[in-house]
């Protein structure tokens, strides 16, 4: 099961090379996203969407809030 992390841990992991992935709809990503984040909306997380991500690096996903 994926580990829930806070903002400080996000920054630590990103500094070490982790990928940031926003899973909100693309329109919301276009308006605001964390620096360096990629957009892979939830409904596009499948074999094709996964192929765009680097499996050798840790991966941090986020949405709007805790929901």
């Amino acid at each position, binding site marked *: 099961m994926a580990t829930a992390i806070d*903002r400080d841990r996000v920054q630590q992991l990103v500094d070490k090379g982790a990928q940031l992935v*926003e899973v909100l709809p693309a329109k919301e990503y276009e308006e605001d*996203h964390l*620096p*360096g984040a990629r957009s892979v909306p939830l409904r596009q997380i499948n074999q094709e969407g*996964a192929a765009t991500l680097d*499996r050798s690096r840790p*991966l941090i*996903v986020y949405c709007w*809030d805790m929901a």
Partner: protein
Amino acid sequence: MAPRAAARLETLGFKDVFHYKGGKLDWMASGQLTEGENSKRPRAADVARNDVATCRLDDRLGDVRERAHATGLDAAVVVDAQRVVLGLLRGAELAKDPDLTIDRAMRPGPSTFRPYVPIKEMADYMDKHNLESSPITTSDGKLVGLLLHSDARQQAEGCPDCARPMIQTVL
């Protein structure tokens, strides 16, 4: 959504998956920068007057009115020692008996808004709720500045609506 996304990625074979539990809202509320279209447009904090007069609960209204008018604004914000917003004095409150203490004269518990709200959304909200001014605060309630309706409306000119309303999540 993020926990479900993380779980799905694990089923696709990803090993080191984390989900940021606070999400984008937590990121922006902490004052961190973002990228994207909104980052190129004014937000509430960019337009708010940070030179607004502030006062304490035991100040005398007449004194505060003079300080407020010296800034060119018919408003002042009531704060505590940590600049946490306690109340608001708009024109109607400033016009009360000058010998009142601020505690007796102020409008307590005003709605506050976060610095990252796009100015177009702020202007529309202030139109709808007939707000002449609103305090902009950090997520821990500390004053950033006072946003005037006239400033918000002027800066919102030409700005598009946003996909996700931000005000409803922070009131």
